[in-house]
């Protein structure tokens, strides 16, 4: 499974949208990729269109902290795009007419696929009803249906990375052989009926171009103010820890030993400057707070470059220069 999606991932360059100084990722494949391969899970912030009246499960976009954006850019797996300027140019500049055309074509394709999916669904439901009316057959079809569901939900996993919408929409028909094949009604229906509208998550073909120096903001445009916690984040990330914003537990970061899908956070973490005095009270409060939520309080700092002469080469392994400590309330 992991192996299946790794190869395309290797050359993937994640587009980080910078909008008003915030860093967002809109492409689900990008989100999955950075989560799986680079240990950046960040926070899902959007409303889930399937079920928009709950706050438990949220959808795209994912908001990255500035540190995380910088980390990904420094690792060379992502680039930052100034989304507003890019979109304005591509939407209104005549020079980008071809891009717009491909975008429209892409949309049309999506809409056709959607239409097709609806038709299939309709046909399937109709078939189900017909079966029910048929009497005894219904038991059989009911049994078949869950099997089909499982198969379909398993399918995208294996073909996840590569499959476009078309591929996904077609897969079910492979499994539901006993359902009357939907294709026949399509040719007749498609022309008279109106294609449904579609709002894709990304402006994919419109802004698909890989980073050109002009459109993508340089990596160092990410504010340097992130420094202290950036070093800590790099350190933790290089050791396989996942981090999320620390607001929930009262630190700068919450640190997980693996994907937060599976594990509880172990630490709440704060980054400091190397020579920055750390108020004792901070240690006590955070330490007690961490213990109260069954976590350790972790704090660390990076030794400045001058002191540690290893320099630029150690860029990948920045953890070299970071010292961290963990405080737990002894409760004696």
């Amino acid at each position, binding site marked *: 499974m992991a192996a299946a999606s790794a190869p395309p991932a290797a050359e993937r360059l994640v587009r980080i949208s910078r*909008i*008003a*100084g915030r860093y*967002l990722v*809109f492409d*689900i494949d990008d989100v*999955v990729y950075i989560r799986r391969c680079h240990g950046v899970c*960040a926070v*899902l912030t959007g*409303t889930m269109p*399937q*079920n*928009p009246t*709950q*706050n*438990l*499960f*949220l959808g795209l*976009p994912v908001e*990255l902290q500035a540190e995380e954006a910088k980390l990904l850019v420094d690792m060379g797996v992502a680039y930052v795009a100034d*989304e507003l300027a*890019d*979109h304005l140019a591509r939407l209104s500049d005549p020079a980008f007419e071809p891009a*717009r055309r491909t*975008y*429209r074509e892409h949309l049309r394709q999506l809409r056709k*696929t*959607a239409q097709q*999916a*609806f038709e*299939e669904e309709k046909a*399937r439901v109709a078939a189900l009803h017909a079966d029910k009316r048929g009497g005894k057959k219904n038991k059989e079809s009911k049994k078949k249906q869950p099997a*089909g569901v499982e198969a379909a*939900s398993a399918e995208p*996993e294996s073909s*996840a990375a590569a499959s476009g*919408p078309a591929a996904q*929409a077609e897969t*079910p028909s492979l499994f539901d052989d006993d359902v009357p094949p939907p294709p026949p009604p399509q040719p007749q229906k498609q022309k008279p*009926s*109106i294609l*449904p*509208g*579609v*709002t894709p*998550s990304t*402006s994919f073909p419109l*802004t698909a171009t890989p980073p050109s120096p002009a459109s993508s903001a340089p990596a160092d445009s990410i504010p340097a103010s992130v420094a202290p916690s950036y070093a800590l984040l790099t350190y933790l990330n290089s050791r396989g820890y996942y981090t999320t914003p620390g*607001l*929930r537990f009262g630190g700068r970061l919450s640190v997980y*030993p*693996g*994907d*937060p*899908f*599976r*594990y*509880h956070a*172990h630490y709440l973490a704060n980054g400091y400057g190397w020579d920055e005095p750390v108020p004792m009270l901070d240690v006590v409060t955070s330490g007690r707070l961490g213990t109260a*939520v069954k976590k350790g309080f972790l704090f660390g700092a990076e030794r400045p470059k001058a002191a540690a002469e290893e320099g630029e080469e150690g860029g990948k392994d920045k953890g070299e220069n970071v010292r961290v400590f963990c405080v737990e309330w002894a409760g004696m």
Partner: protein
Amino acid sequence: MPLDDDDNPSLAPSEINLMTAAPSHGGSAAAASAADEQMTAEELLEDEGGSAAQDFRAFATALQHRKNQFRKEPGVSAQTIRRGEKDFESHGTRAQADALEQSRAAMRDVLSYVRVHTVPSGPGASSGKVGGNPVRGWYFPGWWEGFEEVEEEEEAVVVKGEDGEKKEKKPYGWIRERVVVLEGSSTASQALGRAVTGQAKDRPARGKDWLLPEEALYLVERGSLDLWWPFKPLEEIFPPDGTVDAQDPGEEEETEVDEYEFGIPLSLQAAYALLIGDDGERGKISLQKFQVYSNLKRCGYNVLRAPPLPKPPAQSPSSPASRQTLWQWLTSRLASPPQHPPYGPLVRPGLYRSYVPIYRQMALISRHSPSSSTSTPSFQIHFHVWKSAQKWTKLRHPPPDFRLAVLDAQQTFVPSLREIGALLDSSPADRGNPQWAGHPGRMYARLKHGSRNVLLAVVDHGVINYMRFAEGSGFVEEPLYGRFDAAVAKGGVAPKKGGGRNNGRGGVVRGGKGKGRGRGRGR
């Protein structure tokens, strides 16, 4: 978690408010609060992690997400989704790896859903199948740029005072900020958007609803709005003389070539790019504010942008004065302390038959009285929030239940006294539920609510935390010493109506008339 625990149903048997139980915030507590209460505190703390609850597998199964990425199964309530089990750390088993993999795959499945809008009025269209009521919106950022909105707020107050509710003014409309025009109307436009009235007849798109950036983005995100980028000016898309029917979507889309002549649909990414901006940018909203807005909307609250601060003078000082109740008058009498000589005993020697006069003499420190200053605060109230209610509409609604300011967790410091004071000053006095007034059992509810309060929504990269700052002048208005006399009175005389907790009011009167029996032995 309800925003206002004053309304906790368990505390208020008289009015059980179903609305407060349902909406909740944060990543965690969307499930029934009843379920939450059963959890131990520890579990809850762990669970506050929010992400702890993000088991997409459960969600995917609940959605019965099958077959294709366009399918939407409406009506899954959060209660049906069980919380996922998590491990402490990796133990290298395949079961664990599989579970993780399933979670990831489920997330991918669920999130690769593509928002589809069925055509609402197409002949034989599969409308209603996908649910919702899709509309098309057009992005015209410059249309209202030069619009001068008349400040209606102040007049409204005056008018209401004179001839009641007869001539009701509309709430402030933020017309200049409105950038998306709706084609047709939908159920959503009952609560969102605003049609600009008083326009010339030949004005294009007359009577159409215009959306604020957050409203448009929220609708796009929940799949209820198809946002388009126009290639043609507004006049052509919405001809002024009401020949809009020529644009009837059905006709337009009959010929596929023509379809994108007027513009193209925007993606979610594009919508974010166009509608999210820096603070104070016209026609945009900052990401933090939008996140709070949509969080509240998802919870079911009604949210409107707070009107701008009123122009300096008058208005507020007059209203408290005119609304002075007997209670306020009494407390103001309480508040004016007797003159103290520069030396000598604090409590003048004499014969005291109740505690009240003694305590009143001991009140040396003048109390803080809520004022409404006109200085522009560095913190501002951004949203007015209402609990969801049947009769609420975007144009006619009661005063907001909550006033809310949005802060960034990483860039803001704890507000100073002056800042929070200014923030409170910009909100009118609000003593909470009128049923609480004078009710002995609700004293702590009153104290907690304060004489007015403000909610702060602290946003840390998409994680939101709500806090309430209440102005606690209530402590002065809830003197406890009245009880002492009451207790004494109860000891001797038959208990009066209202009993022991007649806080101060009864005490003052009784003390003044000397009805208190003897010198009590305390309580």
